[in-house]
């Protein structure tokens, strides 16, 4: 089973990398849009998986592995430092607040939706 969790994390990280490269090529602002969307959508999906009351094995492979590897906390914080160091303190603060607020809110919405469906 531990092998499947690692594989899930590998797939999640590759999706994160591919999405980030595509968004970075198309976007025109310095706001870290890719990581923002990834972290919020991942929080929604993991909330939903929790609400669906899936079996522990399914939760570990798709939740801990796939979605856990898809979202990232280290990139989020490093991007805040990068924004602050490139004279964008307001955007750094906006990124921080919107990520924490949005992530928490979407986790709750996903959880409720999962409970309705499950």
């Amino acid at each position, binding site marked *: 089973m*531990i092998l499947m*969790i*690692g*594989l*899930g*994390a*590998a*797939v*999640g*990280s*590759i999706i*994160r*990398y*591919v999405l*980030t*490269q595509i968004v970075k*090529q198309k976007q025109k602002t310095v706001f870290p849009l890719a990581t923002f969307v990834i*972290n919020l959508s*991942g*929080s929604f*999906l*993991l*909330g939903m998986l*929790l609400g669906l009351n899936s079996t522990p094995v399914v939760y*570990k492979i798709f*939740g*801990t*592995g796939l*979605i*856990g*590897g*898809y*979202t*990232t*906390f*280290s*990139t*989020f*914080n*490093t991007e*805040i*430092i*990068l924004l602050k*160091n490139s004279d964008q303190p307001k955007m750094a603060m906006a990124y*921080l607040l919107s*990520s*924490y607020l949005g*992530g*928490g809110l*979407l*986790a*709750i919405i996903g*959880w409720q939706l999962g409970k309705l469906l499950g």
Partner: protein
Amino acid sequence: MFKAQNIISIGVFAFFGGTLRYLLGEWLSYNGTILVNLSGSFLLALLTYYAIANNRWPEWLTVGLGTGFVGSYTTFSTFNIDMLKMITQNQAGLLSYFLTTVIGGLGCAFLGYLVAKQFNKREQR
């Protein structure tokens, strides 16, 4: 745009980062999430400002270590779900979990940046 060696490197490194996160979570529960998120924020900022900013290492290695290993080792979704679980199970720990993660994550990333700056300075001499 996508090099096969970068994708493979990210997948292999992320396999180990995600597995390590799972094991620490099984062992330490909520504290495991705090540990991976704080140490990972330090490591990624260090890597970004030391290796990536100066093109010290080949691209496949830095994306493997940064995007793959550390990116997969840390998690934003589990952080939110931990808090969701704490609302019903452990309200006393909720505020300290949130504050430790928010302040500690940013602090550790800043520390990683400072350490990288020191390394860079030392090597310029």
